[in-house]
């Protein structure tokens, strides 16, 4: 009953299982999907992290289960095991290994993060220096208890209860709130930005193809928090450039009469002094 055997057997099991798991994961399409560049990045990141965790987790589980089964005390044997207290090489090896994994995860995540928050990296390579990237479409998201409204400052600053954005163009969301903290979450677009009163939070999206998306509130904001969303008839839509242009025209016509009442476009809106 050699030491080597007790390491090789579970080692082989681990190799087989983890390879199988990782292969399955490579064929898995994880949410949020591939509607935008950022969403795609998140899906891939999810895959990578699932593979890392599967490999690590399976290793621990397999070895632990194997040891628990093989080294169980025989019935009637009340004796003790060998007094092993530690092993310098094993312990330092363990630390080094986990540090390497963690460093990889951190580096990968940091690079991926840059690709999600810097406008030049959100757009596809071909678009790096295009004018559209330097002047993205600005959509202001205004959270209030309990509805999202959207302003389009580059189109006369009209406001709309529904959101439409064009595909294949960099969109910059300026998210703010009129009262409490909301969380603007367009799940399939792969963007989630908190709407905070007195704060302008910025997020970027580059949609790859026309699609419909839902918007939910991800930060508890009171009674109708769960209903503060654009779903069903109120779905958000990614439109082709031309369809977006015509939608803007219609919206300006329909919501135009309100414009004279709206405050001048600003990054944050402070409510009138609090009414107690």
């Amino acid at each position, binding site marked *: 009953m050699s030491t080597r055997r007790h390491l090789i057997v579970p080692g082989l099991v681990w190799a087989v299982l983890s390879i199988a798991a990782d292969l399955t994961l490579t064929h898995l399409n994880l949410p949020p999907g591939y509607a935008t560049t950022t969403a795609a990045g998140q899906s891939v990141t999810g895959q990578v992290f699932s593979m890392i965790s599967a490999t690590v987790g399976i290793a621990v589980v397999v070895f632990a289960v194997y040891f628990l089964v093989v080294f169980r005390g025989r019935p009637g044997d009340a004796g003790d095991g060998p007094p092993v*207290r*530690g092993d*310098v090489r094993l*312990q330092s090896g363990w630390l080094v290994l986990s540090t390497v994994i963690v460093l990889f995860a951190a580096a990968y995540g940091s690079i991926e993060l840059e690709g999600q928050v810097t406008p030049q990296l959100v757009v596809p390579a071909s678009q790096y220096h295009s004018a559209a990237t330097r002047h993205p479409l600005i959509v202001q998201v205004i959270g209030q208890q309990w509805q999202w409204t959207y302003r389009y400052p580059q189109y006369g600053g009209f406001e709309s209860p529904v959101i439409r954005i064009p595909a294949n163009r960099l969109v910059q969301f300026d998210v703010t709130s009129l009262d409490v903290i909301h969380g603007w979450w367009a799940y399939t677009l792969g963007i989630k930005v908190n709407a905070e009163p*007195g704060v302008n939070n910025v997020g970027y999206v580059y949609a790859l193809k026309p699609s419909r998306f839902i918007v939910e509130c991800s930060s508890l904001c009171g009674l109708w928090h769960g209903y503060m969303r654009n779903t069903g008839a109120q779905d958000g839509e990614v439109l082709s450039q031309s369809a977006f242009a015509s939608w803007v025209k219609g919206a300006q016509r329909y919501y135009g009469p309100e414009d004279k009442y709206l405050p001048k476009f600003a990054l944050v809106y*402070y409510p009138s002094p609090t009414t107690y």
Partner: protein
Amino acid sequence: MISQSPTGSSSRLQPGGLAHSPEEIARIPLVGTWLLVGANFFLLVPFFYAFFLLQSSNDNHAFKPHGVHPPSLAIGTIALALVLGSIALTSISVPRLRAQTTLSSFVASGWVGILLLVGAVVAQIWQLSHLGFGIVDGGFASVFVALSVFYTIEVGVLALWLISLTNRAGYESRHPIAVMDPQRSSVESPTPITALATSYLIFSCFLAAAGAISWVVLYFL
């Protein structure tokens, strides 16, 4: 990484007694006070954090609206000076506590220190009642009132602590307290007054530092 050999002979060790030894008893208030200082430090952190975050973000330009200025610097300085004076007085007299004979002199300085602390509390209350602005007037007003009230309460508690310490000194000067031998008696010795005084000193020095810092922050930044 083998942990230290567990089977050491116990011959070197002083065998345990029927009660905890006076040395252990004396260390309890010191350690406890250091932890109390840590907890109090983190009680104070949010006030300063709030001050600097609100000052830097200055939302709606309402951190210090027009007409909101720090109240009388003189009174604030007097309050702080009283606290510092009291603490300085005690810190001079505490090291001389060792001998039973100096107990009575400690009592005298203790009462003076108490009066100074009470004076500080009074000054702070006067200050808070003549602010010139209300707690509703922006971020600075809120921080000023909240921090001053909190600090005043702490100073009041410190005064109570000093009262108890001074009375203890007086009590011991009248009836000295016997120290028990843990090897023979299972009745614990009382906490020695030197330990109590030292822990008072630790905490009061912390409060002095906190007071000085908040004085700078609230009146000059």
